[in-house]
């Protein structure tokens, strides 16, 4: 989200507060979220993609809703389907109406392509509704489809091939394909929300959610760009009528929004000038300067991400939706386990719920030794969290670095339980904090530098042995 877009959303929040007496908030958020999915989508050199990607997000959401619905569709669902169709066609029609053209970053395709795409998605949703009925095979197929899409987008060679294929379809030169073509706004978050719903339906834990609220949940505009990954049973009840934006609520939302804006646009963007990157990594040969670059990177990535989350939470509050916290002072924690309880919390919780816990339970059920269960559980979970950021060696290395760190902390904690250290608790806690901070900062070297040679050089200089 750009600063202008954030300010427009904030303005809408203030205006909407005065309209709820006449306008249902849930419908307003539904319409705003659908339109924002197109509006926030970045431009792409591939023809029609800035229109088709948000359409695919909405289509996948409708498909998963139809697949997981535990009841028959009702009148409100029909209204929502009609509203969704009208909004998608409105964005397409904006190519003819000058004031509406800002709804999409590039000129949308003609109505025939939009209508064709909608017909295809409607047919798929009806089929999913008729055949799905909560059957495990269909729900698992949905999970596999979403994982397949994530892999295709996040793996550079596959993203390149997909871009070439899409360019070919649109009559463009496939030779110009680039991995940067496929900037599918918020798909990492959308896919994880959808997988959560499919898995909860499989476990028989999913409650009843109408199409309108489900679409809003998946593409809720404050959380579309950078999360958090909310759970559906926490989000949907907040759309019930009765919300009034009073002065206390306005103040709280304003504070949150302002702190997010300062973190993102002042601190993070300011630190970006001298934060570690593949270029300045080679311009520094003194350990102290390299540590400064690395510290700037560590702070920048925190302020950038936590700032975005704060903006999302502040905007959500303006519309009566409390989104979960994603960062709770992670750099002040005395150990790595607590760091991961306070860094990108909703992502870590997602992986715990849908991967770590079932995997660990399965290993424990087979009588594997405790240390091995912890090692395998932490390495695989953190490796996957790394790959979620991008399927490249450096993100995998970052994840495994933290997996090993968590395993080491677990073993140390077990050891220290039996033999408490003869140290003042505050001193022990301070030493733990320092060790955690250095370990996390060193981990950012993997994250910041895609090339192994760059990372090796930086580690060398940090240790005072490289040039």
């Amino acid at each position, binding site marked *: 989200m750009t600063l202008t877009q954030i300010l427009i959303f904030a303005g809408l929040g203030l205006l909407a507060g005065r309209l709820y007496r006449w306008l249902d908030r849930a419908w307003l958020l539904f319409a705003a979220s659908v339109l924002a999915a197109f509006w926030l989508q970045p431009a792409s050199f591939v023809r029609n993609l800035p229109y088709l990607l948000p359409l695919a997000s909405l289509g996948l959401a409708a498909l998963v809703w139809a697949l997981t619905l535990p009841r028959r569709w009702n009148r409100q669902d029909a209204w929502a389907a009609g509203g969704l169709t009208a909004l998608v066609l409105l964005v397409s029609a904006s190519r003819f109406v000058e004031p509406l053209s800002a709804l999409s970053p590039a000129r949308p395709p003609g109505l025939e392509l939009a209508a064709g795409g909608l017909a295809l998605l409607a047919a798929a949703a009806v089929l999913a509704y008729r055949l799905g009925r909560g059957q495990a095979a269909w729900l698992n197929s949905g999970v596999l489809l979403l994982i397949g899409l994530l892999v295709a987008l996040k793996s550079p060679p596959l993203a390149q091939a997909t871009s070439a294929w899409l360019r070919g379809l649109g009559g463009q030169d496939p030779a110009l394909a680039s991995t940067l073509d496929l900037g599918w706004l918020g798909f990492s978050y959308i896919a994880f929300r959808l997988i959560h719903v499919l*898995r*909860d339906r499989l*476990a028989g*834990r999913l409650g009843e959610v109408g199409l309108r609220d489900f679409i809003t949940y998946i593409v809720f505009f404050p959380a579309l760009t950078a999360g958090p990954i909310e759970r559906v049973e926490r989000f949907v009840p907040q759309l019930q009528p009765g919300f009034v934006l009073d002065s206390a609520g306005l103040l709280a939302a304003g504070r949150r929004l302002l702190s997010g804006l300062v973190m993102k646009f002042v601190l993070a963007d300011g630190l970006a000038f001298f934060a570690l990157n593949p270029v300045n990594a080679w311009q520094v040969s003194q350990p102290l300067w390299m540590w400064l670059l690395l510290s700037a990177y560590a702070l920048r990535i925190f302020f950038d991400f936590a700032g975005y989350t704060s903006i999302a939470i502040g905007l959500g509050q303006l519309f009566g939706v409390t989104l979960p916290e994603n960062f709770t002072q992670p750099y002040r924690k005395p*150990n790595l*386990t*607590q760091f991961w*309880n306070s860094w990108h919390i909703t992502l870590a*919780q997602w992986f*715990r*719920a*849908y991967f*770590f*816990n*079932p995997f*660990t*339970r399965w290993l*424990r059920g087979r009588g594997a030794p405790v240390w091995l*269960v*912890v090692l395998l*559980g*932490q390495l695989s979970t953190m490796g996957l969290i790394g790959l979620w950021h991008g399927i490249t060696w450096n993100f995998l290395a970052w994840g495994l670095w933290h997996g090993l760190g968590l395993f080491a902390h*677990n073993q140390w*904690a*077990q050891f220290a*339980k*039996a033999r408490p250290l003869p140290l003042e608790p505050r001193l022990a806690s301070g030493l733990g904090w320092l060790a955690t901070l250095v370990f996390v900062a060193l981990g950012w070297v993997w994250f910041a530098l895609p090339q192994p040679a760059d990372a090796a050089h930086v580690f060398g200089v940090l240790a005072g042995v490289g040039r």
Partner: protein
Amino acid sequence: MKAEIISKLNTYITSEILKRPDKTLSATEALISGGLIDSFSLVDLSLFVEQAWSVRLDDTELNAETFDTLEQLAGLIEARAS
């Protein structure tokens, strides 16, 4: 019933997870958000609950939001066991 569950949970957590059988946990002490129980021990705790009371804690429920204290966990077990 609830007091009995709390006492049994307390014994298990202090002796098996914290390795401090002499310690007594308060029923309202934050176990997960307070850093006493890590994610691995949480899975072990859920296996213990399943074994002791035949109550299944779902993988998505092993977090501080569902239960963070002995009081809350005992309430969950009591509600499901009945």
